[in-house]
């Protein structure tokens, strides 16, 4: 223990030692990864060039042993890009992300700044806000389904305060939100791509914000607590008021975390599935069909099979990767990623990209 002063771990013989033990220790995890993750990703690519019906017998071998029958080249991709359904799903998903990501990021940040003040009960608030994030997405969807129903809480509350309620009822309402709002000010016939998410989709978006805001807040809180207090003292002495301190110190210093929260938000929202499945099954008039939901329908329902579904999934993967790269461009510092502690990054990824909320677990 006296040697404790030499922490040069990398060169330590204990580290350098053995090639074989390394692989022995990796074997259990890597065998699962090889088949169900690495293998599955490659297989998804391969499959996307095939025609493969769900009920076709025999698992994966027919794809390899009889490629002549099923190989279709780029046909799946061509069909997808020509399909109105896909572009509608793409639009729906984009609106979903454009609504949810800014909303949850801003609310999360504001709540974190408030909860970071020297007030009592901070732990209580954090516990309460975080609870939805760890609850089952199906449970939450069922509860909100009831709240959004014709005689549910939302309508009753709106009536109680004298607000109008949408008709048809929330989750059955296919009208575009932007379209409705523009209609109020006398603008009609807006193009399809500008109609906005349907009222039904908006309802699910609100649920998503409700669920994830707490997670985002916890992340920002961690970031805020790492900020140097003396900078604020100096700013206060220079006469900067609270708002300016927030705008000119807090936000710039949190930029890497903001960038990261946005990325993860995009990754999560672009995969939304559970809530759609339980609450709207893609309807009304396909206005809540997201790309992920379309993969499910085409692959496992009365759709065009697993090959076609895989092609959509690959497109989804490409979209998500592209968003990630674009975001990295915008968060200027090259070392952004290093500034976000690895733990936060992995943890966030876990919570926001998985079934959690917008997302599914593992």
């Amino acid at each position, binding site marked *: 223990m006296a*040697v404790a002063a030499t*922490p040069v*771990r990398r060169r330590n013989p204990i*580290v350098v*030692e*053995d*090639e074989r033990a*390394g*692989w022995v*220790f*990796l074997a*259990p*995890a890597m065998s*699962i*990864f090889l088949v*169900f993750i690495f293998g*599955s*990703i490659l*297989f*998804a690519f391969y*499959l996307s060039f095939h025609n493969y019906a769900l009920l076709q017998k025999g*698992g994966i071998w027919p794809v390899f042993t009889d490629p002549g029958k099923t190989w279709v080249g780029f046909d799946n991709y061509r069909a997808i890009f020509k399909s109105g359904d896909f572009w509608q799903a793409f639009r729906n998903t984009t609106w979903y992300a454009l609504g949810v990501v800014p909303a949850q990021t801003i609310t999360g940040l504001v709540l974190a700044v*408030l909860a970071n003040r*020297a007030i009592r009960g901070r732990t*209580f*608030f954090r516990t309460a*806000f*975080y609870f*939805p994030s*760890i*609850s*089952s*997405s*199906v*449970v939450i969807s*069922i*509860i909100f*389904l*009831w709240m959004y129903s014709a005689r549910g*809480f939302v309508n*009753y509350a709106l009536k*109680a305060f004298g607000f109008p309620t949408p008709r048809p009822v929330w989750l059955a309402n296919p009208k575009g939100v932007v379209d409705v709002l523009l209609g109020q000010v006398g603008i009609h016939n807006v193009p399809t791509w500008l109609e906005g998410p349907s009222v039904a989709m908006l309802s699910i978006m609100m649920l998503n914000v*409700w669920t994830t805001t707490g997670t985002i807040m916890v992340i920002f809180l*961690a970031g805020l*607590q790492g900020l140097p*207090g003396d900078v604020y003292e100096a700013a206060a002495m220079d006469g900067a008021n*609270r708002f300016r301190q927030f705008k000119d110190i807090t936000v710039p210093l949190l930029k890497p975390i903001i960038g990261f929260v946005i990325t993860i938000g995009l990754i999560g929202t672009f*995969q939304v599935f559970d809530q759609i499945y339980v609450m709207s099954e893609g309807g009304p008039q396909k206005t809540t069909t997201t790309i992920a939901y379309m993969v*499910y329908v085409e692959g496992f329902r009365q759709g065009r099979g*697993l090959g076609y579904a*895989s092609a959509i999934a690959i497109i*989804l*993967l490409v979209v998500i990767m592209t968003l990630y790269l674009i975001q990295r461009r915008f968060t200027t510092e090259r070392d952004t990623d290093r500034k976000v*502690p690895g*733990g*936060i990054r992995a943890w966030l*990824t876990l919570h926001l*990209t998985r*079934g959690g909320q917008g997302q*599914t677990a593992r």
Partner: protein
Amino acid sequence: MAVATESIKAKPQVTTSREVSTPVDRILNWIAYIVLTLVALAMFIPFMFSVSTSLKTNREATLPLSFGRMFWPANPTTEAYHKVFNSDIERWFLNSVIVAAVWVIARAITASMAGYAFARMQFKGKDFLFLLVLATMMIPGMVTIVPKFLILRQLGIINTYGALTIPFMADAFGIFLMRQFFESIPIELEEAARVDGASRYRMFAQIILPNSMPALTALAIFSFQGAWNAFLEPLIFINNSKLYTLPLGLAYFRQANYTEWPTMMAIAVITTVPMAIFYLVFQRWFVEGQVSSGIKG
């Protein structure tokens, strides 16, 4: 890891370091209280509704007499719970428990072993492999679901407990978590053991693992949560009501009984309560510790 913990445990809050005495501060504190309380209520109300609705009769759940009656039933009844317990829910509950237990145990083994290799051993391709493992966290579940389905069918374990557990026995996050933790354990412990002639395997089992309880606890919590809430995969892989987990059972019940709100809410409550208890007991790990990659101490 060091970076993470530092940033979290860093000095008191920004605001605390200033005196909270100016009028502006006091007003801001009031605003904070009011906003935070309202949001906490908003977070709480939906869960309260699931409890109150589960205690209503079918009629009262669909046609509340008044706004006030919406919050609490006129005559609370446990009818819905009786109904639930006459169905398959005990089975579903048991399935959820079994599946969660397997996830927790399997991931503890695979993640700690792999994490140890990544933290302390040197072999060709290690860094690349580690990056590859981390990168898989970004892959949408929808990309791998079709191949997983086909592979499981090929192996003949679709519609079995195997389908609910085997593909999830290792995960990137767990490996990452354990590696971060092992890197923080002083190397001297292993050096001492080595002087005593301990093999790599004994070192791992007798020195590293007993010192890793905080990280293993965190890992167990996340695995439990993941298993308990998993939905997409069970939905695709399971087609037999005897094998449903709770979320799957709830989703199917909803499709079959569109408006039986009290029963649905009763299932929702039964699904949520174990997670809630778990959360309250371990919330330190969930919220605070976890942000710093789940490592306490």
